Each structure stands twice: as structure tokens, then as C-alpha cells.
């Protein structure tokens, strides 16, 4: 009975994911038909439309899916680790560090490869800074980790503001796009897919322990969970997922906070279901948001982070209200 409900949710999410990817491939300034999509994937014929698909839409769609999946996964993990419903992938300052890296790179005129690397380096710096401070006495508590993360975040925020206020108008435009999350330059490679798959497999392996840990540290210890080791693993894996996501697309908001909550409200509290669902819904959600971001005010593009908020907030409120009424 319960089993069937789980299958139903996962199947719906899979269909939704496929539909969102198709929607993304179909939307854009050049009209491309379903037949052309099939043709372009199946044969190696090269025409303008298949070029648009192969070089622009497919890579961007996949980048959106991977980013959304990583963010939602990281959000779900952070919420267990910190046992705080407000936790999101960015709460421990990872995006702040990445932003400082990325904005500095923009200031220095870098783009593409160097911009990504600077963002990733900033994220890593932030992860070790936060953990190093929280862990100073060889023993770290979740509260100290959270407080350290919030303070370091605030510090990065100040640096970001300095960079924004002292940069030229041209740079500020790119910086704002990065800060709100933007997929127009995003590409993913094999390593990104592997990371997402490792995240899914690892998340499933740990899902039962996550179910116990979210109910409290004491209970988890008494039920045989090695809490210290698990928390360390959760902190670093969620951090790497977040760092990778912001490196791909900048700090896209709301996905990591709202997707896990939405799924929990829909009944996926068990992490065996929540982990794969997060990846599917997080991915689909960002794919749709990005399709809208590049079509709503075409030929102009909106930062995808604006769209995630515009869809995410009302959708979340709707689900929250409907579950309360039950």
C-alpha cells in the first residue's frame, strides 16, 4: 500500500522530468518541432535547427537539470544535518565564497573556464573556513557549525557588496546575473553527471540513517548510527554538491530550500523516496524555470534565479495551504 504510493510519486516525477526536458528543448527563439528533435538525436544530419539543439538547447537543458538536482539534494541533506527547516544549500556560506570568487574573476575580466574555477575555489575556501572555525576545539556541534556558517556568509555578503559598489556598470550587470543564477553560459560534463549519480547512490545508501538522524542525534546514536562520522560525510558531500551547482550556474535560489519541503509535504518524508525525488523534481523545476527565463521577455533573458522565486514561492504556498487543510 505504502509501497504503491512511492512508485506512483516516482513515476509521476520521472514523467514530469521527461516533459520538462522536452518543454525546454521546444522553447526558444528558433521554432523546433518534435520531429526535428527526434531527428537530431537519432541521426547525425547537420542543419541549423539541429545545430541549435546540439550546441545550445540540449547542453543548457542538461546543465539546468544537473544543477537543480544537485541543489535540491544538497538542500535535503543540509536540512537533516542542521535539523533546521530553514537550512538550504547556501546557509553555510558556500555560495558566498563562490560569489566572491566569481565576482573577483569578473572584475579581473575573466570568463568561462576561469570564472568557474574562481567560483569553485571560493566555495572550497568557504567550506574549509567554516569547518575549520567550527571545528577549532576538535569537537564540533551542529549549532556551532550553523552559527559559523551564518557569520561567514554575512562576511562574504559584505565583500560582495564592496565588489558590486566599486565595479563598473558593465561588470555589475554580469555580477548581478551571476548572483541571481544564470544558465546562459552553463555547460556540464561527464564529471558533473557522475557527481549527481554518486550523490543519488550515496544518498540512497545512507537514506535509512538519514531517516533516523532527522529524528534527533540521541535517538540516532541509540539506534546504531555513527552520528559523528555521518555528519562529517553529510557536511562535505552537501558542500561539494552545492559548490558544483554554483560553479555551473551561479547561486540559483529557492530550489534547494523549497524542493525538499515540497516533497515532504507531498508525503515523501522517507529519505529512500525523498533523495531520488529531490533530484528529479529539483532538476525538472530548474529546467522549466530556465526555459521560461529565456523565453518570457525574449530576446532578453532573465536570470533563472528570478524565475525560480516567481514560480517557487506561490507553488510552495499553495502546497503548504492544501496540506494544512487536510
Amino acid at each position: 500500500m505504502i509501497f504503491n504510493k512511492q512508485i506512483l510519486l516516482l513515476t509521476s516525477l520521472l514523467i514530469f522530468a521527461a516533459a520538462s526536458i522536452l518543454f525546454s528543448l521546444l522553447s526558444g527563439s528558433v521554432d523546433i518541432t518534435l520531429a526535428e528533435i527526434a531527428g537530431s538525436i537519432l541521426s547525425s544530419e547537420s542543419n541549423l535547427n539541429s545545430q541549435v539543439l546540439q550546441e545550445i538547447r540540449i547542453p543548457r537543458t542538461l546543465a539546468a537539470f544537473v544543477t537543480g538536482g544537485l541543489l535540491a539534494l544538497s538542500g535535503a541533506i543540509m536540512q537533516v544535518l542542521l535539523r533546521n527547516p530553514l537550512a538550504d544549500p547556501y546557509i553555510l556560506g558556500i555560495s558566498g565564497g563562490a560569489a566572491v570568487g566569481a565576482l573577483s574573476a569578473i572584475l579581473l575580466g575573466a570568463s568561462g573556464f576561469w570564472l568557474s574555477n574562481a567560483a569553485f575555489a571560493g566555495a572550497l575556501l568557504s567550506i574549509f573556513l567554516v569547518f575549520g572555525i567550527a571545528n577549532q576545539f576538535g569537537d564540533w556541534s551542529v549549532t556551532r557549525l550553523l552559527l559559523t556558517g551564518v557569520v561567514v556568509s554575512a562576511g562574504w555578503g559584505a565583500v560582495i557588496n564592496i565588489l558590486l559598489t566599486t565595479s563598473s556598470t558593465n561588470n555589475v550587470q554580469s555580477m548581478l546575473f551571476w548572483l541571481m543564477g544564470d544558465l546562459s553560459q552553463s555547460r556540464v560534463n561527464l564529471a558533473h553527471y557522475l557527481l549527481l549519480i554518486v550523490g543519488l547512490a550515496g544518498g540512497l545508501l545512507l537514506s535509512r540513517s538519514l531517516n533516523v538522524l532527522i529524528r534527533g542525534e540521541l535517538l540516532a546514536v541509540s539506534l546504531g548510527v555513527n552520528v559523528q562520522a555521518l555528519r562529517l560525510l553529510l557536511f562535505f558531500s552537501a558542500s561539494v554538491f552545492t559548490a558544483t551547482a554554483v560553479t555551473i550556474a551561479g547561486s540559483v535560489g529557492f530550489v534547494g530550500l523549497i524542493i525538499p519541503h515540497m516533497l515532504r509535504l507531498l508525503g515523501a518524508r522517507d529519505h529512500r523516496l525523498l533523495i531520488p525525488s529531490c533530484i528529479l523534481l529539483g532538476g525538472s523545476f530548474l529546467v522549466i524555470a530556465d526555459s521560461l527565463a529565456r523565453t518570457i521577455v525574449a530576446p532578453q533573458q532573465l536570470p533563472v534565479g528570478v524565475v525560480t522565486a516567481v514560480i517557487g514561492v506561490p507553488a510552495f504556498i499553495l502546497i503548504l495551504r492544501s496540506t494544512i487543510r487536510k
Partner: protein
Amino acid sequence: MATLQISSLTLEVANRTLCRDLNVQIQPNESWCLLGRNGAGKTTLLHSLIRQRVIDEGSVLLDGKNIADLKQRELARKIGILFQQGIEALPATVFETVMLGRHPHLQSLLLDNEKDIEIAEQALAIFELGSLKERPVDTLSGGELQRLALALLLAQTPEIFLLDEPSNHLDVAFQIKLLTVLTDKVREASASLIMATHDINLASRFCDNIILLLEGGEALVGKCSDVLTEENLSKAYGCPIQSVHSGEHRLFYPA
């Protein structure tokens, strides 16, 4: 069945000695109560037995093996605990919660195995929670939550049951009923039980042996019939305690 050997155990909190050189051997089929004043170290002692707290000196051996050398999961298969603060009221169902008790035993990674489900459902039935199976935990009353915590512990099927204030949130009728059910189950499984409580009468009714924590880290260990005396209790609680006989029970009360 497991034997727990507490050897020369010393526990300290903020330079205060809770117990010094404590030696207790807990055999299968034994029931022990743990009495002492507020802050005497009852909870700390129980937590040290599941490695939730560092042992300052001495050792705890489970079937001859130091618990410090066991994996957390191995320990959880042998020793289970009911926490003083019970179960947190979160939006999970009663069944999902009682299934957590099977965590140390689970074999399959993703699907729940029939046997685990059966054990969990039995535990719910024993504590009269069968009809609440699909209810979210955050809609339960205090007493229902405490029964759920007991069901979770029973589903864990440990060989040593640690109970920290098991009578919390329970009315008098449920205190007697649930502890009777639980002690019966413990006996059926040839398990053993250690119960920390403030209720001297509940302790003397359900336990044969006692660890009575005194001021300054001293402790009296032995049979309830020997240790549970007006004199010892008055000393332990720092207030005069007297007793009366009523039927088969001996009742203690503050004078």
C-alpha cells in the same frame, strides 16, 4: 543473552564526581532500578552505557567485550534505551517511527522486510497503538508519545533495556500497565532491564536489584530487599523517608 559488566566506572561532570569506582554486574533476566536525587547522575550513567557519553575511568564490558571497541550498530542490537525526553513530535507517522527501532537490524537497503514490519506491528499492538498506525506523530498526546517510545524500544529487541524515567507523561493506570507489559516482554526474551526513576515505589515494584546513587559519587548496589531501606533512602535523598506495608507491597513516602 547479554551480560553487562560495569567495572570501576568513574563519571565526572564539570569536576563533580557522579559515581566513583562503580562495580555492577547485570545478568540476563535481572531487573535493576537506578535511584538518586536530581543531578545524581542517573541519566549520565545510562548514556555512558550506550557510548553517548565519554567514560572518565573504568570500563563497561558487554559479554566480555569493551563497549568502546564495538561498532555503534552492534551495540544498538544489544542495548536499547528509552530517553527521558521521549520522542520528538515530528510530522512522521506512528508506523514510520516504530520502524526506526528496526534500524540496527535491517538487512535490506531499500525495501522493508516482512519480518521487520511484523515485529514493528506487534510492538504497536502491545502498547495499544495499532489503530494509530498512520497518525502523524505530532498529533499524539504526551501519553501516546511515551507509549510510542516504548513500542520503538521493544521493536529494537535489545537484550538490555535501559529506561530513563519510563513513567513520564503516563497516568497511574498506564504506569503500572505498561511497565507490567514491558517487564513481561523483557522476561520472555530473557533480557535484562535498568530503570532510572524518581518513583521509589514503582522501582521497588518492578525491580529486584538497585543502584542507589549517593552524594559525592558513592553508590549502594545490591538487592532491593537489602538496599531499599528507610535509612539508605533518607541518606540518598537528603530528606527523611519512611515506609509502610500494604498488602504485598512496601510503600515509601517522605516523612
